[in-house]
């Protein structure tokens, strides 16, 4: 059996996904090309050697439309023989891209693949691609498809995570992310973004709030109470009638931020790596993807992680370090509770609550963050997982070499 190895992982800093954000000044393709160039330079790659590029993107329209993967390869000046495709597994697109690259390599049909993701949420706003789940009333009402924030509030309500609890989790994310920055834990993967003239646009995540505290967090308004009152709360209760009413505990402070960013991972087999002088950092031990009840939506990670673990005969206790995407505080708390994971080994450097969630790019970013931290702590097995719209979950297990 071929093994799939990770040779390198890079990511852009995350810029605020609005007009005043530093990365709003560049096109999405610019961010993706920057990661391609970084991978190429850091590994002294002759891009002819690459078989394919798999790029996750959640809103693949306009500037991100019509296969941005191939467009970016050409724009970055990669060899014209390298193919590219764009995939969409919503929030886990970037992680799914890596998993797909691993499958390509493990099948033996390809040797070296780049995989990652791109999302310029400032240039191509979320939901601007329409879609049946949200914008076809027949589909929405038949499925019971509610906004994710309301789903997160539903989890919090059912599990009894009150506002204090989710805010406390959020504060921990901010504190951990700041600590990680102060100690340069991210420097291995992060690449600064320059303009055409080499002027730096951004070299550090822009969303960090070093001065936040519980008091500030507690003053933020619930973000999903109004949309819930349109009828989405009712839709949630239709599926979960044991709930008296939805407690809207999520705010902009304890949910993931809207940001811009791109990420890329270099995946290949041993022989190809050796031939090109690439040093394997970890192998992709197992993956899991599945789907769960779509209305509550954000409970896919636990079963996805278990699926990945089961495939290699492992249990949650075998995992030394965890990354679970901080889409919403309650989604992480629920996952932590279901899997019985200690605070010290979950999202140890903060996550999307503190630094933002550039949709399609996040998965490959988290994978890089996990790998960096495993190396720093000298651990051997780690798992990254993500909750996904409509109930899906994706997980990847890494083992260091």
């Amino acid at each position, binding site marked *: 059996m071929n093994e799939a190895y990770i040779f390198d992982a890079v990511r852009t800093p995350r810029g605020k996904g609005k007009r005043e954000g530093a990365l709003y000044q560049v096109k999405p393709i610019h961010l993706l090309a920057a990661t391609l160039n970084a991978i190429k330079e850091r590994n002294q790659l002759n891009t002819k050697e690459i078989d394919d590029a798999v790029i996750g993107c959640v809103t693949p329209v306009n500037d991100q439309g019509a296969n941005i993967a191939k467009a970016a390869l050409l724009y970055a000046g990669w060899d014209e023989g390298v193919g590219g495709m764009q995939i969409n597994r919503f929030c886990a697109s970037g992680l799914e891209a890596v998993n797909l690259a691993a499958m390509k390599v493990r099948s033996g049909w390809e040797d070296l693949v780049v995989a990652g993701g791109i999302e310029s949420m400032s240039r191509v706003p979320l939901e*601007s691609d*329409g879609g049946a789940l*949200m*914008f*076809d*009333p*027949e589909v*929405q*009402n*038949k499925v019971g498809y509610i906004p994710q924030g309301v789903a997160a509030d539903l989890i919090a309500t059912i599990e009894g995570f009150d506002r204090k609890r989710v805010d406390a989790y959020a504060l921990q994310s901010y504190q951990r992310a700041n600590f990680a920055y102060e100690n340069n834990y991210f420097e291995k993967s992060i690449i600064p973004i320059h303009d055409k003239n080499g002027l730096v646009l951004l070299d550090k995540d822009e969303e960090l709030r070093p001065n936040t505290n519980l008091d500030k967090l507690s003053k933020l308004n619930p973000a999903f109470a109004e*949309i819930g009152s*349109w*009828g*989405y709360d*009712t*839709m949630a*209760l*239709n599926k979960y*009638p*044991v*709930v*008296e009413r939805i407690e809207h505990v999520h705010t902009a402070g304890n949910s993931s931020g809207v940001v811009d960013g791109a990420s890329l991972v270099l995946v290949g087999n041993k022989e190809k790596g050796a031939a090109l002088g690439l040093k394997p950092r970890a192998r992709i031990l197992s993956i899991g993807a599945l789907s769960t009840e779509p209305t509550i939506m954000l409970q896919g990670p636990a079963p996805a992680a278990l699926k990945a673990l089961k495939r290699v005969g492992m249990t949650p206790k075998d995992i030394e370090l965890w990354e679970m995407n901080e889409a919403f505080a309650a989604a992480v708390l629920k996952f932590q509770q279901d899997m019985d994971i200690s605070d010290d080994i979950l999202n140890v450097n903060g996550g999307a609550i503190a630094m933002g969630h550039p949709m399609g790019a996040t998965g490959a970013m988290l994978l890089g963050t996990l790998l960096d931290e495993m190396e720093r702590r000298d651990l051997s097995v780690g798992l990254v997982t993500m909750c996904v719209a409509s109930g899906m979950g994706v997980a990847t297990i890494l083992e260091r070499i």
Partner: protein
Amino acid sequence: MINYKKDTDKIVTLTLNMAGRNINIINHEIGKAFIPVVKHLKAEKAKGELKGVIITSGKKTFLAGGDLDYLMSAKDAEEIYNFSQKLESFFKDLESPGVPVVAAINGTALGTGFEMALACHHRIVIDDPKIRLGHPEVTLGLMPGSGGVIRLLWGLGLEQAYHVLTDGRRYTPNEALKVGIVDDIAKDEHEMLEKAKIWLMKTNEGRRPWHSEGGTIPHGTARDKNIAQIIRKIAAELMHYTHNNYPAKQAILNTLVEGSKVDFDTATKIQSRNFTNLVLGKEFRNMAKAFWFDFNEIKSGGNRPKGYGKFRPKKIGIIGAGTMGSGIALVSVMRGLEVIIKDISKPVADRGKSYVEKKLREYIDRGRVSETEKKMMLDKITTTENSKSFEDCDLVIEAVFENELVKSKVTQEAEEHMDEYSLFGTNTLSIPVSKLAKASNRPENYVGLHFFPPVDEVPLVEIVQGEKTSDETIARAFDFVKQIRKIPIIVKDNWGFYAARVQNTFILEGITLLQEGYTPALIDNIGIQAGMPKGALELADELSLEIILKYEQQAAEHYGAKYIQHPAVKVLDKMINEYKRTGKKRKAGFYSYDENGNKQLWEELTEHFPTTQCNYSREEVIERMLFAQVLEAVWCYQEKIIRSVAEGNLGSIHGWGFPPYKGGAFQYINDYGVDTFIEKCQMYEKAHGQRFSVPKILLKKKGTGELIE
């Protein structure tokens, strides 16, 4: 059938006048009759001999809706689809002879009748408040079948079309103008035709926007971002109010959204397909049964005692200017009655008149009544503190609070001044009419008139026959209720009459579920999701737990030795006596209430009634709460509390909010399947007790293939 007249300005007036009918209705016949007419018009146009067309009616109605009998009997999808497309192609012919066509609407045009008006290029209606216009199909679980949805989409834009199609309203001419479904109003027939002609003389082309280069839907299509967001909100709101129980509203929204993304002709096909789907669905059959067939049966007086001349009251008296009395005053003046409102002092009585004025102002804002009408109506109200004003009243209704002594006193005071022939009505909730009638000098003229709050919205009145109430009085009460456009159902003087008695079983079953260990939130959520207006526990609080218990005690009294205690009684007893939680009035019942009336389940409730049923069956919870009501309704029928299934169905829907999409408490059985319903009851009887036993009147239907009708 169609009279053809052409004037010197080359304008053709087509007058619909269907032979052998009082009204024009839309059917195959009229479609066929139009074929040669349209052909001729096209030929005239080709010769340059046609400037425009006016379509009007030779009857009182312009054009009535489609044929419900036909649709109820239709079983074949292809046939229904073709039927609706055939009409649509007729409408298309009508709008495309190449010259403009005006609908000169001189009478009511509803449903398919209005779809034809929409197929004209311009609509002018006579300002007659009796005329009704629009698309009330949704109230029968249906949507327009032949292009009307798409024409409204193109005429009004998606959002406004959605509201017009789903609010189920029959608009007056002024309202219709306000919402934009007609273009102009004329004061009489003459002005209407004149205006039609003027419009035709200045309009050269009869091209519709959807057939024009660059024609667009107002405000945009579902592809536009802002419209897409509006649709999301509408869709969520729809779920909030219907819980997926009303496919017609959903189908209308689906049709508008999908129809906005494709060309007009394809859109009308999508409309026809969705229409076909609804016609074949259960909800249409249930709702048409209740709101059309049952409604017409009651209205035609099937249960009115025979042999008594029609009662035409001109002046009525109302005792008590509270919300009920004021509401009765409102609906009465709106139907042309003179009203005397009496209360303990004139200023108190004046409050009743102010209420009417406030409501009428709301109606003016909606375009429902005019300023002049409002003034006329208010002039008909006299307020007083003196019963002497009842001298020439044909009927006096007391709506004072629920106290036997007070009710007796006002009855006697009023009767002193009323003539012998006049009626006295009591708006009693729970005190038996026969008991109250003892205070009356003329108990044969004494009748229960049970209105439901809010009076202007609930279209039902229970006419309660006391022991001594004469048949003639019932007949007269029936005529009065009909005159104020309410649905009269005649009920026997029994505890809770029909509505409150049956409603109580829903509440008791909900309470029983609590006692069995179901989560309280689940009980109320599932009740609402099944289509009840409120959850059982919430409703118990609102009515007060003492009243709930009192009704059940009356039932116990009635059945005597045969009575088996309902398991909910123990819970009620504990709540009332042990926990001192009697309901919303005291801010403490199953829920706790804050100063603003916001409620939250009582924190200790699950301590006293611990949740043990974690793996509940949604179906069983729904069925237990609905079956309890259905069976009690059937008992009422068997015990002759109500006289007909039609009254039982509409009484259940309007009286206590039995889910309308089920067509009422009796239609529920037919919809479920008579035999399977009986079998399921027997299962529940075994599991949960005798209260699920099936009354004989229903049991004997088993295996016969008959419906309960």
